[in-house]
């Protein structure tokens, strides 16, 4: 069985030894102990496993690790820079946009991708691009508010 021996994650090249058929989610979590991305459904329906691959929000549960190649992966663990949280992480904290927070990593990653594409998203933009992420605790109104706050505080940049 072909093996994957390295992945580019959060600005580092990390050695792994994983069957290429395994999901990226499982390799990140089980082999690299990057457990921020969560399993919620395994069928691309909940967004809890969202990571960025070359900036594109991607369901890591449905991504075979063998298909990732040299592409650059960013997980929730890679957002903090020099001890400073991403403005969206800050906004989640300020607004209290979570309850159990199991969805939070996926929400933040999807939200970061949205803000990169659309620095000043409208409510409709947010709803449309976040529709694939489930928060079973129902904190959607707060997540929308957090994304709007992050857009405002980063002055539409980032």
């Amino acid at each position, binding site marked *: 069985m072909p093996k994957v021996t390295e992945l580019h994650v959060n600005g580092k090249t990390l050695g792994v030894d*994983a*069957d290429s*058929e*395994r*999901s990226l989610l*499982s390799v990140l*979590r*089980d082999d690299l*102990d*990057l*457990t*921020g*991305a*969560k*399993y*919620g*459904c*395994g*069928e691309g*329906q*909940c967004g*809890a496993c969202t990571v960025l691959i070359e900036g594109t929000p991607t369901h890591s549960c449905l991504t075979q690790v063998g298909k990732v190649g040299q592409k650059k992966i960013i*997980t*929730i*663990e890679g*957002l*903090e820079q020099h001890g400073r*949280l991403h403005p969206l*992480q800050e906004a*989640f*904290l300020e607004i*209290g946009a*979570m*309850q*159990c*927070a*199991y*969805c*939070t*990593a996926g929400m*933040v990653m999807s939200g970061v991708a949205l803000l990169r594409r659309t620095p000043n998203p409208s409510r409709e933009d*947010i*709803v*449309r691009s*976040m*529709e694939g*992420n*489930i*928060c*079973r*605790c*129902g*904190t*959607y*109104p*707060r*997540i*929308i508010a957090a994304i709007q706050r992050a857009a405002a505080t980063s002055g539409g940049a980032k």
Partner: protein
Amino acid sequence: MKAPLLLDSSFEAERYELHAAPVYHFDLARRDFFKVLGSGVVVLLLIEEVAAQESGGGRRRGGFGQRRPQELGAWLHIGEDGQVTVFTGKVEVGQNIRTSLTQVVAEELRVPISSIRLTMADTELTPYDAGTFGSRTTPDMAAQLRKVSATAREVLIDLAAALWQADRKSLAATSGKIVHSETKQSVGFGELTSGRKLTKTVADNTTPAVEWKVAGTPVPKIDGRDFVTGKHKYTPDVQVPGMQHGKVLRPAAFGATLASLDAKPAEAMPGVTVVRDGEFVGVTAPNEHLAAQAIAAIRAEWKTAPQISDSELFDHLKGKSADVQRSGDSIAQKPDSSEDKPPAAEHKLQQTYTVAYVAHAPLEPRAAVAEWKEDQLTVWTGTQRPFGVRSELAQAFRIPEERVRVIVPDTGSGYGGKHTGEAAVEAARLARAAQKPVKLVWTREEEFTWAYFRPAGVIEITSSVEDDGTITAWEFHNYNSGGSGIRALYHIPNQKTEFHQAHSPLRQGSYRALASTANHFARESHIDELARLVKLDPLGFRLKNLQDARLRAVLEAAAKTFGWGKNKPSPDHGFGVAGGFEKGAYVATCAEVAVDRVGGTVKVVRVVQAFECGAVLNPDHLKNQNEGAILMGMGGALFEAVRFDNGKILNPRFSRYRVPRFSDSPEIEVVLLDRKDLPSTGAGETPIVGIAPALGNAICDATGVRLRSLPMAPKALKI
């Protein structure tokens, strides 16, 4: 020493629960608090006192009035470094009790939030706790911790008084120090406790809510940073050295038994261990992918028996109803005929309402990591009943509870769905066979199939109303869904309310507010129907028949903020109101919907909810709970239903079982009524009961069509 487990007196869901577990009576003398924590001050609360206090809460059932064994309720340690460690068996599942409990400790002890650490839900370290359910954390555990902390504060004042030979009346605790009001001397808590090993049991010296400075304020979620950075370790994130991944072979249908099994292809896979123990079949493998492949390679044949489908459900529930009332149950009220009036100018109404099974679908599925070290078992698992799961494990493996440790990391929600320990037992069984630690994470499909559901039910109401809007008779029968929230708060002289058990074709159990949602849906829909019958405004009609001042207050507050009585923005919009009471808290919900009759869709435009649960501990988290409950409740109200046929779940995935998403999110406004004169009660459940009837009433207002089955849309609306 062993006695039947005595669950919390307010725990109304007993018939759905596993509660045959023995009580672990732990020996106070054997526990050396200081060995683990170093010297300092320890304050203990004995639960006997708590049980006595709870009995004032009413709603006590047969068997629940007994005294609990003398047991620790909560305890707290103040170390030489001034660090306060609080121990409670409660579980954090997103209701943010880690924060609210920390707040009450900070309030009473007069220390900053940052110097308090809660150790929660670890059977080795925390006192016994029946479980985190029934909205009891705030009324029970917050009250206990307030007392424990207030006592600790008084102990520290005593110590300082002795140190300075001062009158304790001139001493006060503030910011982690004891300060002398005249000499301005001060000494830190840590310094005071230094070198001591002092234990003390509790007296009541708590601070009244009107004087609160930390409790009652919007303190942000404790450890919030760990959640937004992905650092927090939920159960599925726990790793232990040498750990394998487990998977369980699931039967072809509910109740199926194994006819034949060929596991050889799986056994031949390198690194795979196959376990068979009676009907239990599972595998372990070095990674998840291989474990899944190994399970798929097992050839099994199952003997199944025919079972009913969801289309026959409601006839089944009613037809098979045994018509028995639970003994010691306070639900059945006999009609009081003394106030019977002549039936002149009366309208009679008889209607039937139904609710479907719904799934909790917590985003973190059931999961466990189990590790045996010799004959000691440690299990990390997301459960609302760590001590109950410890009993399940001890029984399953026939070992004493002392040899089992259950640790519950802050968990990816539960909603009443994680009272049992299936994943824990399965992981432990696999780990014992593999002789290595094993992690087992249920798939979404397993979670949708092998967990339990919120009960389905049929509710029949017969009532009479006079022309002037006085409700004169009320007869209410609930089949299967349960007794919580069943009693009408309306002042109706002639009432009869009964709950009838039935045989449920699916495994059912607790769920956020449980039957209260069904009972409120039926009652508040029916009340609306009565108001229409006599052509009265639904809000005015409710107020006319209500004497309960707290329910009136929330209804009036919600209506005011909503702008009740204003004109519809367009004919396809409708307004609805509903009110209710459950678990010591009051809720009123006003909703605006827009209905598309051609597409048969309902859009929830706006929801205003007023909520009152005594003195508010954390207004922001209380609002968050209300918002979340409204959204979750919209799912059960409008589209969630578990479909089944012949012992199989037909929609065990998010692609087939629709849950609320971003696009469903309405404009929500929550109005909190903060009653500092009343004890705080829990708020994780009650905020969910108002939304379904408010939406049904709004849909009827928009269309004239009355929907009496949950979920409501788009059935019957399409033209």
